[in-house]
């Protein structure tokens, strides 16, 4: 179950996220839950495997926006890096950046799964 404490323990900048939600904890948790259900965390990997760079950029960009607003800091770092790399088509190892972001997302899922 999603709680403020678990998010804090995970490393989210909860204070920052709560400010954007006008201090309403329930609303913040509701938004976070909605954000984490986003299937693009999974599909982005497939799109990258198929080298559909533009599509991958749009997905990464959208995820970055949501994650940033929710202040999920551990995911925000690698997803931002991936977004900028895709935007400028730098040719770095996109998969590696994706894996970092995905690993942070999975870690959060694990934290939340633990009662």
């Amino acid at each position, binding site marked *: 179950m999603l709680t403020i404490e678990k998010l804090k323990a995970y490393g989210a900048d909860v204070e920052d996220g709560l400010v954007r939600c006008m201090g309403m904890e329930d609303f913040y948790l509701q938004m976070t839950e909605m954000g984490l259900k986003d299937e693009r965390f999974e599909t982005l990997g497939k799109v990258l495997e198929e080298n559909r760079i533009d599509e991958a950029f749009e997905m990464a960009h959208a995820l970055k926006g949501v994650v*940033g607003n929710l202040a999920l800091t551990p995911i925000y770092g690698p997803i931002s890096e991936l977004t900028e790399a895709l935007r400028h088509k730098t040719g770095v190892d996109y998969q590696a950046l994706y894996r970092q972001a995905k690993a942070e997302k999975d870690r959060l899922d694990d934290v939340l799964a633990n009662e």
Partner: protein
Amino acid sequence: MNDSIRRQKLFHRTVLVVDDEAVNRQMLGAILGTAYEVLYAANGREALEQVRIQKDLISLILLDLLMPEMDGYQVLEELRADPILRRIPVIVLTADRSAEVKSLQLGAADFLSKPYDMPEVIQARVRHSIELSEDTRIIQATENDSLTGLYTREFFFEYAHKFDRFHQEKAIDAIVLNFNRFHMVNELHGREFGDRVLCAIADGIRGILEETDGVACRYDADTFFIYVSHRSDYDHLINSVLRRLGEVMNTPEMRIRMGVYQDVYRAARLEERFDRALQACNSIRNQFGFSYAIYDMNMHEREVYSARLMEDFPTALETAQFQVRYQPKFNIRGETPRLCSAEALISWQHPEYGRVRPDAFIPLFEENGLIRRLDHFVWRETARQLGEWKKQYGAVIPVSVNVSRVDIYDPDIVSFLLSLVEENHIETEDLLLEITESAYTDNSRQIVQVVSQLRDKGFKVEMDDFGSGYSSLNMLTTLPIDALKLDMAFIRDIARDNKEMRMVELVLEIAAFLEVPVIAEGVETKEQYELLHQAGCDIIQGYYFSRPIDAEEYARFIMKEMALRTKEG
């Protein structure tokens, strides 16, 4: 309570949040929901649909750039292309600095970064953008003339002063442009057409302003003020206005006059410069086409002279500087011309200027309303004199007096004239009334009403200066008149079979149709007299018979006529 809060409380504004991410939309909704009604759209297409339906309701759009279906840039382009929708301010939501330039070029008002700033920051920026947009719209509505888009007169002077501050060394022209007798355009072609004409003039002026520095306004219904850098000639401006006017009306119908005050030395105040340009403009009367006058020292002297005449008027009335003179009118239908009436004319013997010509003070007094007092003086004096002559000679030969435009609006005109007739024991038909033709065309309903009342009481009314105004034939048949008095300008140039003579013959035919006599004034020569006599003109007035003379001298004409009548039995 500060202004922003007071405004906020007046009514709830509506904000449209456009973002494809539900989380982002809802967060913004939470941030803005306490102060605004919030609408949502998940992509550009949905956003445009909502904006088009609720354009009057939406005060601001918060717009994400990267979205499926239609992105934020496309939305900005569509909004910008629509003259109504472009007024709605848009705040772009972006984390990408490079997107800001393009968004600004497409009309974005502001930016919000992602992840979102503190709610207070977002709220303040939304509030500022809405206030700025509303203020701009209010200012635009008050500073621009709603018909032509030029400045209103109040803001015009404000901006002209500002222009002066920034261009202190520049020579500037103050220009007044007027469509002479514009009300006739409205009357003949309708208001909508008239509005198109005014917009065309404004477009012509705007064309010049775009090329050179300056400001312009619609000063009143048909008058424009223009404040532009000085040029050696005005063809540029004239051609620009004529070109636009030519798109909506025929050249013969154009009656544009323009007065210019060239301010090389910046000696006069701004408002004075426009007063002088207006004076130059008013010095041109009743000309077709496009004519202009430049204010010069002669005009300045005339201005000073006019001011002096106005100042001296009350004293002149009190000290008998005004004198009524009489110019005889002769009936020429019979074998020999016979005195049938006279016109009472005013003469001013000024202690300093000597004899002041009526055309120097009558138009002036017509403009400022003093003419009413002067007319009353002439009417009173004429009625008194008619009473005297009646006592002396036992009968009266009628005398006509001039009735000015402003007199027509005097609710007491009928009772005042009746009281003069009664006091002096004369008849209403002894005091003829001359009313200029243009007064009829200015306000035909009012004048027909007043003239009908006067005629019901027995007064006879002559239409003066006929041919100088714009009476339609249709209007003439419905007007209550007893005589047509030909405009002097026609008589001056008549010669056998020339254009002016044919015009006179035409007027005689109209008069025959209306069954009223025609009076020709300004007849000076034997040739003119004979031409008019042969053409069938009824009555002649002018130097050919006599100049205007004082009562004593005129009495000799009366005596002579009385003697003839006695002889005829």
